[in-house]
């Protein structure tokens, strides 16, 4: 629970949220402070719970559940988290020529966001933030930890992760087909996300070159929202040099 790494003392906790496991690691504290540091992890879990309450389509009363249930022509007031994620989703849709689509094809132009109000233009429009919401929740958790004066650490939402401050993370990639993990590298002060695409996965890679074998795409980016979302863009186009990556100071790998 409290490994030493490069001289830094670390505590870590994990809880199930966002339909996955959320791990929070905080470093830079002394062993004698462990109990207090363990409690400080709640700052991150609380931020994630708030994001989940806004963004999950499975939570009754969330902004997204209300939008999906609403009739065409309805305006919905949304929380700050929803506003941030949908604004980013709109930019990503435009910049990826429609590859990134939070309506999952139901009605890409069926929603409109204006001054923290969400308008439903098309009755068929349903929003699913599964390709971006976890990344945003991780960013919010990291911001909350930084505001609380935590000197370094990380938050990992089932593989969408971000490190900050003096934490340097060893990255391991999970093999979704065969199990086990492989060493990938080290991450310092940034975000990293991986998507699996294949017969049973939600993300699809449509290029002939990769159609024969299921595979993974990983993206490193300054924010976890972008790392999360850009894995979907790369999975959709198969191009690790898509212009959006450089534009977002991000880098992608197919493996």
């Amino acid at each position, binding site marked *: 629970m409290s490994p030493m790494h490069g001289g830094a003392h670390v505590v870590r906790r994990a809880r199930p949220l966002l339909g996955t*496991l959320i791990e929070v690691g905080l470093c830079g504290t002394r062993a004698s402070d462990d109990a207090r540091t363990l409690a400080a992890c709640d700052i991150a879990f609380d931020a994630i719970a708030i994001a989940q309450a806004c963004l999950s389509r499975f939570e009754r009363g969330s902004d997204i559940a209300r939008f999906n249930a609403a009739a065409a022509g309805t305006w919905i007031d949304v929380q700050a988290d929803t506003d941030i994620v949908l604004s980013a989703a709109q930019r990503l849709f435009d910049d990826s020529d429609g590859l990134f689509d939070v309506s999952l094809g139901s009605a890409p132009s069926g929603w409109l966001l204006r001054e923290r109000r969400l308008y439903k233009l098309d009755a068929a429009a349903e929003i699913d933030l599964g390709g971006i919401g976890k990344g945003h929740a991780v960013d919010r958790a990291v911001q909350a930890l930084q505001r609380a004066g935590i000197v370094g650490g990380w938050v990992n939402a089932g593989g969408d992760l971000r490190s900050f401050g003096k934490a340097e993370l060893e990255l391991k990639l999970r093999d979704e087909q065969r199990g086990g993990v492989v060493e990938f590298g080290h991450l310092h002060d940034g975000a990293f996300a991986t998507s699996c695409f294949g017969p049973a996965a939600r993300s699809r890679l449509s290029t002939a070159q990769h159609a024969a074998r299921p595979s993974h795409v990983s993206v490193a980016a300054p924010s976890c929202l972008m790392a999360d979302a850009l894995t979907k863009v790369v999975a959709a186009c198969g191009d690790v040099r898509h212009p959006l990556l450089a534009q977002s100071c991000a880098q992608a790998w197919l493996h």
Partner: protein
Amino acid sequence: MSSGGPASGVVVTLTTALALAPTAAFAIDYLSADQAAQLMFPQADRFEARTVTFDAEQLRRLEAAAGVSARSARWQVRVAQRAGATLGFVVVDDVIGKFELISYAVGIGADGAIRQVEVLSYRESHGHEIRLPAWRKQFVGKDSSAPLRVGEDIANISGATLSCSHVTEGVKRIVAVIELARQTGALA
């Protein structure tokens, strides 16, 4: 493995070519059951260990209430107390996923509502050996305070989202266990 342009704003130092790398097992221990109980009920001055045993009829009621298999007739419950009054209950359980074994603790208030779910340990197998009794047996009876430490370094797994559905199912089962134990007077 192929990689994108050089304009990354984030430094990722690559270890090796992924396709050639052997897969490894992985284990993380987060908290002991006692630490989790303390986090969930910081006001408690005592945790009393109780064993709850259900008969066949009670197990049928449990399955009907939880909507999941009862799995076990015997459950260990930590009863959180303060000055003799019951604050709530903590139950520790394990679930097996596609490639992982997760130990977790559920805290339930005196009102029967879930207070917190905390992961105690996470063990990622090399692969399908998770289905082999021999692989799982190495963890039997291991409390997180006496863990098998495979990877003690700071490491984070990235992969397609790990589903927590089996943990969710386990939590439902434990809520029903506590409910039934209270109804039958086993936790009185």
